């Protein structure tokens, strides 16, 4: 008989990312992923009393009630999280906190992002034209708009301070592609990559090349967080949320306190302190990887290596699922596909599957703890969690 764990993840579901989700809408994608995640947890829609979702095209406001009504839910807690790529990880501690506060006992954390090859997602141009933010006024006129150019300016500054990282960035892309070979849902599964191919790919925004960047896709992913006592009755091993951190410092990279010392440090330090788990105990790092350069900064600022040493760390470690530092074993978004906020959730679902020993051909051996990090905007929103597993 185990002690009652903290609020825990007991079910996950994830759609394979695709370039075009066809006629699917936010609501149809949400409905199917909700049912699938709940079934994985041995639960149904009627068991849900907490719902966390995110800004969607379907309604300019009131998304939680729109979705709750669509799915026939009676909710004690309903909210929308708006932290870009950090949204999914940010949902986890909110779900756990709501459960601890007695507001709900089964909280569905759901991300769903339809996409057409025309490229419209919920962060698309319709919203931008109406934007009267400082960003629209002072940054957009110069083309400081997309993520790639923002991350490129970070990488340029990083390389000015700490030296060239082109090879280390390529090695990250290659190792994650090797991981994706064992995750059939990954967009680039079965399409191996080598370092030379990355280094020869098209220059998009100096110093970032095409294969340093994620491919935008559509998709959906969800996890079910439940009260500790319920977690022990779930059909699969409970994955407790042991500690979490969050940090937000800016919206546009120009106004960030630093380009090379990021708020990832605040977020990760809080998560590790709350969990009481050491970095050395982490068997899987599931780190948000919108760009290869993001991974380098996260390795440093989350405390896995010292500032300026990420490139050497990458060179010294095997980052594949059976290596000395398993990283993004689903391929990361670089190889799995980036379905907007659902891409952030892919780092959570992979950590849960691995902790539950469901990693199939890419299972990390003797895994006890995973660190999951979400990063939104241009290094703007940071959220971290340490996850464990209750072995019965």
């Amino acid at each position, binding site marked *: 008989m185990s002690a009652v764990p903290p609020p825990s993840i007991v079910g996950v579901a994830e759609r394979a990312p695709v370039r075009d989700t066809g006629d699917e809408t936010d609501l149809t994608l949400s409905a199917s992923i909700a049912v699938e995640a709940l079934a994985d947890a041995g639960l149904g829609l009627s068991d849900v009393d907490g719902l966390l979702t995110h800004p969607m095209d379907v309604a300019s406001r009131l998304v939680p009630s729109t979705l709750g009504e669509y799915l026939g839910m009676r909710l004690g807690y309903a909210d929308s999280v708006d932290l870009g790529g950090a949204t999914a990880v940010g949902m986890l501690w909110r779900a756990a906190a709501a459960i601890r506060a007695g507001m709900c006992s089964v909280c569905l954390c759901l991300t769903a992002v339809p996409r057409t090859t025309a490229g419209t997602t919920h962060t698309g141009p319709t919203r931008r034209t109406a934007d009267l933010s400082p960003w629209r*006024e*002072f940054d*957009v*006129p110069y*083309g400081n708009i997309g993520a790639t150019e923002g991350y490129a300016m970070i990488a340029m500054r990083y390389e000015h301070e700490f030296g060239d990282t082109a090879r280390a960035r390529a090695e990250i892309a290659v190792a994650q592609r090797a991981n994706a070979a064992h995750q059939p849902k990954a967009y680039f599964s079965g399409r191996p990559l080598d370092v030379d191919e990355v280094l020869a790919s098209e220059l*998009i*925004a100096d110093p970032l090349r095409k294969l340093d960047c994620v491919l935008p896709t559509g998709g959906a992913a969800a996890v079910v967080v439940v009260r500790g006592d319920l977690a022990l009755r779930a059909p699969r091993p409970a994955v407790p949320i042991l500690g979490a951190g969050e940090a937000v410092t800016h919206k546009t*990279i120009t106004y960030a306190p630093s380009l090379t010392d990021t708020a990832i440090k605040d977020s990760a330090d809080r998560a590790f302190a709350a969990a009481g788990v050491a970095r050395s105990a982490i068997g899987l790092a599931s780190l948000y990887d919108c760009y290869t350069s993001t991974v380098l900064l996260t390795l440093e600022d989350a405390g896995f290596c010292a500032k300026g040493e990420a490139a050497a760390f990458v060179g010294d470690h095997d980052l594949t699922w059976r290596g000395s530092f398993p990283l993004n074993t689903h391929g990361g978004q670089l190889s799995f596909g980036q379905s907007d906020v659902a891409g952030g959730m892919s780092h959570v679902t992979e950590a849960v599957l691995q902790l539950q020993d469901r990693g199939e051909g890419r299972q990390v051996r003797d895994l006890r703890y995973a660190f999951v990090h979400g990063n939104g905007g241009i290094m703007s929103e940071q959220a971290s969690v340490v996850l464990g597993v209750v072995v019965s």
Partner: protein
Amino acid sequence: MTGRPTPHPSPVTRPFWAACARHELTIQRCGGCSSAVFYPRPVCPVCGSSRLDWVAATGRGTLYSYTVARRATHRRLADRVPYVIAIVELDEGPRLTSTVIGTDPADLAIGVRLQVDFEDDETVSFPVFRVAS
């Protein structure tokens, strides 16, 4: 060349664009803590004071970081590709987004000294930067 994406000034930011039209770069100076503030705000982001005065900036700064956009990031910038997107650190302290003109992007380097210039279109004068001679 097509005009840049047009800003939509608010009452708080209008003095900045009015000064740009006179080819003057201005920033705010906090009467509470003396911080230099950019972009324009109604309260100081450092100390919270609402005593913010418009002051002339030297127009000198340093290239803090940059990239070269090899693909257009906005349809109105399409005929400028490849173009420089820059973060400029003003000598007064604040950073702003701009571009560097008049130099081959391949010759740029972080840390280079910059001087403000202005690029006029039909309705707006945009601060841009040149490598200081």
